[in-house]
C-alpha cells in the first residue's frame, strides 16, 4: 500500500536518510526500531512531505507522493501522529478534532466514531488542548489523525512518557485500526510493545534501513535486537 523506495532526505544541507526503503500493507503493523537519532522520525516527516526528498520515491497505491505539495499528502489518506504530539495547544479539543475532520472533509459520523474510541475527550471538548494531561494529549493527537479516516496511519512514539494503562489504551486502538484494514507504521522503542503488536519490524541505523524481519521471528530469536538497539 505505502511504499518507500530508496529515499534520500535531510535538513537543509545535512543529509540524514540514505537510501531508505520500506513498505507496509493494508491491515499490517510495521514497526520502526532504532537508536535515538537513527532517523525514524525523519522518515515519517519525509513521507508527510515536510522534508525535501532528494532521491528515490514514495508511493501510495502506486501514486507518487514525493512530488506532491505537502498539504495534499494527508488528503490522500495518511494520518500522522507526530513525536511529541504537536497539538494545536491553544485550540480546544473540539477545534483540534475539527482541523482533523477538515483535512478530508469528514463529518459528524467520523467525529462520533473517534469520540467513541476516546470517550474521555468527549467530556473535555471545550478544554484547551495545552491544559490536557499527557495521556489525554496523546489521545487527542491520535484522535485527530483518525479523523481523516486514513488508509495509512503513522505513529511516532505514541506511548512516550505514558503510564501503563494509557499505553494499553493506545495499543488497543492501534490493534483495532489494524483490524479495520489500516496500514500502520509505528515508531516504538519498547521491545515488549513491539513484539506484542508488530507484524514486521524494520531496523533503522544511521539513516539507513538495515534489515526487515517478521515479528514472529524476532520473538523466537532476540539477537537482532541486541545488534541494532543493544538490548
Amino acid at each position, binding site marked *: 500500500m505505502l511504499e518507500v523506495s530508496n529515499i534520500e532526505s535531510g535538513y537543509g544541507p545535512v543529509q540524514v536518510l540514505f537510501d531508505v526503503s520500506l513498505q507496509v500493507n493494508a491491515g499490517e503493523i510495521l514497526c520502526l526500531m532504532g537508536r535515538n537519532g537513527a532517523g525514524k522520525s525523519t522518515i515519517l516527516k519525509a513521507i*508527510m*512531505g*515536510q522534508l525535501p526528498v532528494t532521491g528515490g520515491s514514495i508511493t501510495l497505491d502506486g501514486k507518487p507522493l514525493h512530488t506532491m*505539495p*505537502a*498539504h*495534499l*499528502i*494527508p*488528503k490522500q489518506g495518511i494520518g*500522522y501522529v*507526530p513525536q511529541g504530539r*504537536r*497539538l*494545536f*495547544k*491553544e*485550540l480546544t479539543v473540539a*477545534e483540534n478534532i*475539527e*482541523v*482533523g475532520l*477538515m*483535512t*478530508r472533509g469528514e463529518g459528524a459520523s467520523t467525529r462520533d466514531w473517534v469520540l467513541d474510541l476516546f470517550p474521555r475527550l468527549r467530556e473535555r471538548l471545550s478544554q484547551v488542548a495545552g491544559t490536557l494531561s499527557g495521556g489525554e494529549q496523546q489521545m487527542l493527537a491520535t484522535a*485527530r489523525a483518525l479523523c*481523516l479516516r486514513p488508509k495509512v496511519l503513522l505513529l511516532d512514539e505514541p506511548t512516550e512518557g505514558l503510564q501503563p494503562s494509557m499505553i494499553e489504551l493506545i495499543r488497543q486502538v492501534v490493534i483495532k485500526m489494524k483490524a479495520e484494514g489500516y496500514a500502520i507504521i509505528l515508531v516504538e522503542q519498547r521491545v515488549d510493545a513491539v513484539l506484542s503488536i508488530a507484524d514486521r519490524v524494520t531496523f533503522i541505523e544511521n539513516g539507513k534501513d538495515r534489515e526487515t524481519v517478521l515479528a514472529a521471528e524476532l520473538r523466537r530469536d532476540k539477537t537482532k535486537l541486541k545488534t541494532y538497539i543493544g538490548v
Partner: protein
Amino acid sequence: MDFGPHLMLASLEGAVISAILVLTAMGLSLVFGVMRVVNVAHGEFFMLGAVLAWVVSTTLGGHPAIGFIGALIVAPVLVGCIAAGVDRFVLKRVNYDADRTIVATIGVLYIIQQSTLMLYGPEARPVQPPFNTRLSLPWFEFGENGFAMIWPWGLSITSYKLFVIFAAAAVLVALWLLLTRTRIGLIMRATQQDSDTAQAFGVPVGKVYSWVFGLGAGLAALGAVLVVPIQQAHYLMGGDPLLLAFIVVIIGGLGSLPGTVIAALLIGMSDGIISVFFSPTLAKIIATFLVAMVLVFRPQGLLGRAET
C-alpha cells in the same frame, strides 16, 4: 471651556485616533502572530490605501459618498492583492527567515514609497468626507436649578468622526468573528500555532500566509481610507502609523490580538488627550517611554505570553 467638556472633547479625538490605530495595529499583529514576520512595510500599505482612496474618489467623481464607498471597497482589496504578491514573490523567496524578512520589507517600503512619489507626486491631497455635519454635544451640570443639560460652545464632533469610531468597532467585531467562528479563522489559528502540523492536516500553509499578509495590509489600507477625509493623503504619511502600530503591538504583546486592541485604545486615547491638553510631541514621547517601560518590566507585553 470647563475642564469636563474639554476632557470629553479630547477623549473623542483620542477615540478617533484609537479607531484608526487599532485597525493598523491589528494588521501588523495578525501578520506577526501567524507568520512571525515583522512587516516594516506596513506603514506603506497604509499610505497606499490613502493614496488609492484619493485616486478612486477623484476618478469616480460625483457626490463625495460615491467616491468614498468606492474607495472603501477598492483600496483595501487592491492593497491586499499587492501585499499577497509581495508575500509570494519576496517573503516566500527568503523562506520567511526572521532577519531576511526585515531587510526585505525595508526594501518593499522604499519601493512602494518612491513609486508613489513618482506616480502620485509630493503633494498632500484631501478626500471629501461623505458627510460631515457638526454635531453639538451636551454636557451635564449641577446648577441652581439642580441637574441640567447644557450645550457648551465648541463641544462638538463631526458626524464623520463618529462614523470612523463605529466603523472601526464594526470591523473589529467582524475580524473577531472571522477568527473565532469560521473555518478560515480556525485554519489561521492552527497555522499560527504549528505550521508544520497544520500542513500535515491538509492546510495549504503557503496560501494561508498570502491571505494573512493580504488581510493585514488590507486592514491598514482600510484604516487609511477612513483617515483621509480627516488627514490628507501624502506619500510620506506611512511613517507615523508604522511607529505607533509597532508601539501598540509591543505594548499589547506580540501577536496577541486582545492585547493589541487594549494597547491601541490606551495609546490612541492618551495620544488624543495629551495632544489636546499639552502637545502632540509630548504624546509621542510618552508613548515611546511606555514602550521602554514595557520592554523593561514586562517584555512579553501586557497580554503576551512569555516564550516557553
